[in-house]
């Protein structure tokens, strides 16, 4: 009996895999999920080891050289060659690691202490303290680091540790800001209030409950700061502040290397590479740690990064010709859609028709493939593609419409309104300008003034109360209902034969929902366009549609006129969906009546 037995004990025992995952140390997680960042960590650890061992592992004396062997290139005796005084470059690089990292470490340590302390203070104390500390942080961030370093060195060039601590404090402005922000977000959590109510002293709350949770943030920032500090420290060393010659440091070696660059570039290259590799390692480690702590590694990042092509591509496949049935506007035949690099199928060959001027509901729960179907018809699949089937519109094959030339798409007369009205408008353009753009695209003969007039007309048609005012507004200044009206107005610019509306009322208040549906019906009466309405709401279907297509797991369960669907659903799933519809449930009065 090795299986966990939750029922017997009443305690849910984690499966061995889950337990193992949780017990995995952060280091192992880093190694598995971010191998590059892990390699960077290993490199940095080795570098610290080199810095500590220094002269012990250096093959030659770093200070005195053999003039007979000056300016040599790489050889078995001198792996990285020698400088003008015949000193072994590798040995100098190894011994120079110590002071370089020491100064860098001092800067980073001071910056961390100052940044974390002031950031937490600002976030926790709030009020004037917060305002004051943030003003200081602004001040520090607006000064170039190298200039601050020179000011500090004017004062303390004889005492490098003090100078490094000062510069550390001066570069901690950004860290203050980051720590303050995360302190603020932790502070708002209930358990902090609970701890305060329970009488825990503030210092303990700050130290144990907030500081420990900042650890991830602090590590990420420490890594990034190290790279920046290293550039400052080597820059200062190059200018002659820091390690005194003849003792080596990376910055000094670059200065030496520059003088002999023409005859022997190896010194310059190796010292530059040492710095660059270290800075890159800190960057990689920082990014890796950030991904781990924010758990963005889980693919969300990859998805956000996935570049989307705006350019035209050849259709992915050649499909057999299909004839469109008479008296249909849109015919979908055997449509298959797959998502992602793995081509995960979400729509598995569906068929349905939309007749001219009709309203067809496309119904299903989340994940049933209804939105994927709509996006496939429109040719705007995100990270997905049509893997089979055909979409016919008005006698033409529009499969892969996403790759059609812009002019063809304009002609077709398919319009789209989406679920999130605010997201479907360009936030940087005024409403009016977007309407004018859409109008002039479909009717290039319109002058700007005419287009403006027509746009105002359209805004009136979608029952906007003050069209002139709305014309001048940005999307973020509109309510959800207003934004959806604007979206509809823009869709109408195309004088579409078919409007595909993806959950057009889901994000809106109930009263606004009814208004928008009325508006759509009203427009349909006037223009005779067909509507393909994607929804999960039986109420909307009953209200709007003449027929509906019920989808589940990427296949069509049932397609029928709505009278049939509501009174005698042929499919079990349709029936169960209908039964679970809250609108169809008995009201309280009905229930009470039944009880009596």
């Amino acid at each position, binding site marked *: 009996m090795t299986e966990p037995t939750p029922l017997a004990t009443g305690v849910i025992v984690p499966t061995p895999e889950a337990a193992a995952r949780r017990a995995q140390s952060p280091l192992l997680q880093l190694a598995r999920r971010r191998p590059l960042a892990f390699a960077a960590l290993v490199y940095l650890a080795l570098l610290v080891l080199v810095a500590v061992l220094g002269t012990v592992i250096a093959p030659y004396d770093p200070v005195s050289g053999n003039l007979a062997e000056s300016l040599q290139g790489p050889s078995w005796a001198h792996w990285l060659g020698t400088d003008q005084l015949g000193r072994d470059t590798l040995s100098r690089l190894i011994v120079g690691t110590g002071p370089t990292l020491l100064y860098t470490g001092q800067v980073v340590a001071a910056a961390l202490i100052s940044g974390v302390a002031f950031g937490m203070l600002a976030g926790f104390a709030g009020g004037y303290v917060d305002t004051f500390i943030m003003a200081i942080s602004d001040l520090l961030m607006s*000064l170039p680091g190298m200039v601050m370093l020179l*000011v500090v060195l*004017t004062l303390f060039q004889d005492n490098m540790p003090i100078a490094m601590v000062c510069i550390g404090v001066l570069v901690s402005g950004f860290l203050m800001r980051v720590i303050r922000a995360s302190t603020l977000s932790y502070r708002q959590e209930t358990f902090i209030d609970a701890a305060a109510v329970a009488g825990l002293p503030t210092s303990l709350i700050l130290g144990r409950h907030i500081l420990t949770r900042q650890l991830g943030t602090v590590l990420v920032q420490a890594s990034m700061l190290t790279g920046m500090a290293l550039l400052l420290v080597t820059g200062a060393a190059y200018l002659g502040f820091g390690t005194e010659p003849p003792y080596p440091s990376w910055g000094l070696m670059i200065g030496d290397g520059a003088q002999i*660059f023409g005859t022997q570039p190896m010194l310059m290259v190796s010292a530059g590479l040492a710095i660059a590799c270290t800075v890159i390692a800190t960057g990689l480690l920082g990014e890796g740690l950030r991904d781990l702590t924010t758990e963005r590694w889980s693919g969300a990042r990859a998805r956000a990064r*996935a570049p989307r092509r705006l350019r035209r591509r050849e259709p992915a496949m050649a499909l057999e010709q299909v004839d469109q049935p008479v008296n249909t506007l849109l015919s979908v035949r055997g449509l298959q859609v797959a998502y992602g690099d793995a081509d995960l199928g979400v729509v598995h060959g569906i068929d349905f028709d939309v007749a001219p001027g009709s309203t067809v509901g496309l119904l299903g729960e989340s994940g049933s493939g209804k939105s994927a179907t709509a996006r496939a018809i429109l040719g*705007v699949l995100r990270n997905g593609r049509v893997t089979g089937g055909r979409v016919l519109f008005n006698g033409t094959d529009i499969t892969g419409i996403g790759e059609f030339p812009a002019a063809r798409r304009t002609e077709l007369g398919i319009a789209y309104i989406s679920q999130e009205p605010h997201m479907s408008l360009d936030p940087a*353009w005024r409403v009016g300008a977007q309407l004018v753009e859409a109008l002039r695209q479909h009717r290039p003969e319109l002058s700007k003034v005419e287009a403006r007039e027509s746009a105002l007309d359209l805004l009136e048609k979608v029952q906007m109360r003050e069209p002139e005012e709305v014309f001048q507004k*940005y999307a973020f200044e509109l309510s959800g209902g207003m934004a959806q009206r604007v979206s509809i107005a823009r869709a109408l610019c195309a004088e579409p034969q078919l409007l595909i509306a993806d959950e057009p009322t889901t994000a809106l208040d109930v009263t606004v929902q009814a208004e928008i549906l009325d508006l759509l019906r009203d427009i349909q009466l006037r223009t005779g366009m067909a509507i393909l309405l994607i929804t999960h709401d039986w109420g909307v279907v009953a209200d709007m549609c003449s027929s509906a297509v019920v989808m589940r797991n990427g296949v069509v369960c049932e397609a029928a006129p709505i009278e049939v669907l509501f009174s005698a659903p042929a499919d079990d799933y349709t029936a169960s969906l209908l039964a679970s519809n809250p609108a169809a449930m008995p009201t309280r009065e009905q229930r009470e009546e039944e009880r009596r």
Partner: protein
Amino acid sequence: MLKIILRRAAAGVVLLFAVSALTFTLVSLIPGDAASALLGPNASEQQLTALREQLGLNLPLWQRYFEWAVSAVQGDLGTSIVSPQPVATQLNRGLAVSIPLAFGAVVLASAIGTALGVYAATEGRWLSKALDVVALIGMGLPPFWIALVLSNVFGVELGWFPATGFVPFPDDPVLWAKSLVLPIAALCVGGIAMVSKQTRDSVDEVLSKEFVDVLRVQGLSPRRILFGHVLRNAAIPAIAVTGGLFVSTLSGAVLAESVFGLPGLGSIAVRATATRDVPVIVAVACYFCLIVIVVNLVLDAIYAFVDPKVRTRS
């Protein structure tokens, strides 16, 4: 919008006072003051006291700062300890070198970085990955190392551009431009890396927005979507980071000027640091701060112009 700019300008003045006061206070912490620095280690106590009184060093710190600030506002930043020149004259001459250098680098970095970033975002995964690697290396190489390599390769070896030195613009505009080519090139490598990555990420982000799909359905050409809608939206975060780019470019300029022997603010600062020339280093810090404040003001104005949320708020 004007209100925002005015408020930021007022904040800038406060910032300038804060920086000068901070620097002034820090500098007054120097063990051994300007008097002992001027007279050398063999000066007698009487000589020191006399010079301190002459320089006003016996007054309390706040009074010294106040006097300094009053004359600074009138354009008098004191006299350098090392050379008899007034500090303001010296620095204004340096400004004429540093400003074209820093602006040239920032403008070039923004232009190339934006183009690369947009290209990487719209042209596919491979280029985008390559950009990550190049950006990482570009940000990792120390700017003064790049400067030294460029100076040695294109200045000393190939002789295409002067390896060091500076020709003032009025003397010979062509030579002036030539003397700035390598320093600007050295300075903008890091900037290009930073800007291209930022641009790529923000264009990617905008491309994933629903309104782009709606515009495609509408039948707008990819070119018009990109240039009319996407770039305008992607510019908003890009402008926000330009301020940071400018500050880091100024940082790099200090070293680049030293490498190329340009008599700019950075070289002046380095010399002042080595000779502990207190009046000069205080004034240099203020100059840099002033540059950053002015640049941030201009960026705020551009930002408000591009981002309607900022413009319509006030």
